[in-house]
């Protein structure tokens, strides 16, 4: 076992981990951050992408001990929490994914969003070609991808207007994962938060 200290969604974390523990196992099993998914065992699908020191990483292929001292951002930490402690505002990418119907089952979505966040942090005005290239390591089986590309473009435009880099500002992350451990009935999409009418059609 090895003790590691890191920042996850801007919260300080100290854990004892086995040397073979993967970053994604640390996130999901130990920290309860189940928004990061595992969709394959060969580092192809990208469902597990998180940011490590601002760069995209497939967390199924990174050992937890390798991120000792690093800052990790997961999908749970992307929404910006306002200083007054109110409800976090969606990151422009998250909003764009909703607006453009860029997700169906939603399983690949966290990895897609994090890969796109990394792209926009380094390339604020990417071409469609660059977006497609940046998403090469992320598989989606539902959407056919075009709506995802459109969402990334929309978010890029939005960020350009706002002048932000798309990454959560230091000190603004959310460290609380979703509560798991409940076996109660899953109310799929029982949240009453409905969207407004989209532009399409």
């Amino acid at each position, binding site marked *: 076992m090895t003790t590691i200290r890191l920042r996850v969604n801007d919260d300080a974390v100290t854990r004892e981990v086995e040397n073979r523990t993967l970053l994604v196992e640390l996130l999901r099993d130990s920290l309860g*951050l*189940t*928004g990061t998914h*595992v*969709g*394959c*065992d*060969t580092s*192809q*699908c990208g469902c597990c992408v998180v940011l490590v020191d601002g760069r995209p990483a497939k967390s199924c292929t990174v050992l937890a001990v390798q991120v000792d001292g690093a800052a990790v951002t997961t*999908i*749970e930490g992307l*929404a910006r929490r306002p200083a007054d402690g109110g409800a*976090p505002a*969606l990151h422009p990418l*998250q909003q764009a994914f*909703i*607006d453009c*119907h860029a*997700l*169906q*089952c*939603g*399983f*690949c*979505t966290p990895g897609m969003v994090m890969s796109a966040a990394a792209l926009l942090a380094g390339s604020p005005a990417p071409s*469609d070609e660059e*977006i*497609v290239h940046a998403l*090469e390591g*992320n*598989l*989606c*089986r*539902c*959407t*056919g*991808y*075009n*709506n995802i590309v459109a969402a990334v473009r929309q978010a890029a435009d939005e960020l350009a207007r706002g002048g932000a880099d798309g990454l959560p500002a230091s000190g603004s992350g959310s460290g609380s994962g*979703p509560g*798991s*451990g409940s*076996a109660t*009935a*899953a*109310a*799929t*999409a*029982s*949240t*009453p*938060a*409905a*969207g*407004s*009418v*989209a532009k*399409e*059609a």
Partner: protein
Amino acid sequence: MAEPSGYGRFGSGHAVRRIEDPALVTGRGTFADDVSLDGQAHLVFLRSPHAHARIVSIDASAALAMPGVVAVITGADLVQAGVGLLPGPAPFKRPDGSPAASPPRRALAHEVARYVGEAVAAVVADTRARARDARDAILVDYDPLPAVVDPHDAVAPGAPLVFEAAPGNLAAAMRHGDAAAAEAAFAAAAHVVSLDLVNQRVAPAPMEPRAVLAHHDEATGRLTVRMSTQMPGGARNTLAQDFFGIPLEEVRVLAGDVGGGFGMKTGLYPEDAAVAYAARRLGRPVKWCAERSDEFLGAVHGRGVSSRAELALDAGGRVLAMRIRSLANVGAYATPTGVAIPLLVGPWVQTSVYDIPVIDFEFRAVLTHATPAGAYRGAGRPEAIYIAERLMDAAARRLGIEQAEIRRRNMIRPEQMPYRNAMDQTYDSGRFASIMDQALALGDWHGFERRLAESKARGRLRGRGIATFLEWTGGNAFEERVTVGVGGDGYIEIYSATQAMGQGIATSYAQLAVDVFQVPIERIRIVQGDTDRGAGFGSAGSRSLFTGGSAVRVASERTVHQARDLAADALEAAPDDLEYAAGSFRIAGTDRAIGLFELAARQPDRQIFVDATSSVEGPSWPNGCHLCEVEVDPDTGTVEVLEYASVNDVGRVVNPIIVRGQLDGGAVQGIGQALCEQIVYERDSGQLQSASFLDYAMPRAGLVRRFRTEMDTSIPCLTNPLGVKGVGELGTIGATPCVVNAVVDALWRAGAGERALSLQMPLTPERVWQTLHG
């Protein structure tokens, strides 16, 4: 046109943003592996490395001695425990009239392993890593046996048998039509077109691997199984009745967010039963989460049908008869869907949108030492439509009739509706020529020559493809139960036993409820995935909206009806004097009114509850015309899909943005089969060579840059109250033949001749290059 105001903007027909999405984009979804229980153990499966082998012995002593290991379970344990088998292929027949035959399927292989990846033992430990470690320490003594994975090899004389009671490896077979009439038609035909077509096996590959968390509660004696499934009710029934032999009430199946299904998550898998068995035996929660290799090896594959297909035509291009002989590779265990899909569901739509009077079909379900086959998006219809559309193009070339024109000459006309096809299936509606004409205009079909010249100038081979087609939806399960609870807390909770897996069911149902209740969509909660609250067929065969959505409409209307009587009491008025609008009842012509939620709060239990079961009258027959243009690089054989245009008759539309998403996303799956996807077995050893995303080519971003997708909503389905038609599979069904026909066209124009006509999927650069250069 002015937007309607208030709640109406969230009713049906509007592109409402999905209510599912805020949770999913922030990592707050609840997929099966996201839930854990205190004290849960982890299970992993040891899988057979042989395609066919006698299991001589299993020595788990070293594994059991390892730290944290709780149990190692084998097939012999299941036999000893007296648990049951998984369902076989009944009620089909073999060619000699005997019952369908398939090896008895246990949750874990017993005595014989029949495909690479069949689960042979289950290891349970306190952590997943320790379970994996222990798995490596199990010693299995196998006696390898000869194996056969190709269906043609399997029916050859002397082939190794998968099951002694299935001579010739034939699990089941069906003949349809009139062989003598077909023979006469072929003898008299001016033209006969014949093709050998392989619809290769593919992996459904939803991004979320299967996961199961089972827990047996000693106090109540009930088993609760949380799993990633499209059919919670079916999984519960099979688990309780077939596997454990216990009352249905003792099993509860829960499903949260399901990360894609595409047919693969229908029915109960052996692994599901093994996890449930382990939880009951060990008295603690047990979780299994499949790895991707578990999915390629152990989850069903789709398609896998080899056909000799023939058309008899008159001199004018009218089809006189269609004759098909097919072998379906159903794998080592014939499942109910694995047999029904090729033997029944495909044939139902085999004549498609064409008025073909005579058919002669023989479909055989062949056992091989391969992973069992099952449903994959389209399930039988893609295979049938692929055959029909390849034949139509081949006939067009043989007779020198333009591709759209030969289709037009054979199409069923609107005045023939309702139309009964040669398989005795009745289409309620459809204007196929009109749909095609709209598509030809949308895709500028007749402007192709100019673009062909442009491609040629760039050294590229251009081709255009067309597919006109229909499909059957509904799974022939037309009844749905819905419960509605109007709460005094100001929310309407609607439970449906259909199961979302990405289709946006919650949003569409909420829109339908808004239509009836006329309240803000935020007041509607859609709940699914709990067999204690209602069990039904689940979601498959594009049935959810037209059966489940219709049931939501009916149940909502009954709720308002029931509430009207309660409101009449409250307002001391006659029910007929009340008007319902915008969530409240008002005595007509007065200002005396009571709100629906206030009314609910006054009831015992502070709610108005309605439990309503309703049925639609029949399947829906969505249809479409898809066009595409491709460019082939003659130096590399690489295919690029440049243009994709389609017009789709989907009946009425509840949410256009969702329907479009289904059509386009489905099309990319179909294009994946056309261009890159295939399950590959090594012919002699039966090893699965495409068992990971490294080896199995999934479509990636950029495959098709732009879809021009139009919906004709003017032809409602006549057999359900919403007038909607199932749209989940339409894109997949049309896209595969459309793209293949375009590549054939490009290669034909380049002079590849018969080699182009006999092109087989997937159209990898190597295969295209070989076809081009001989």
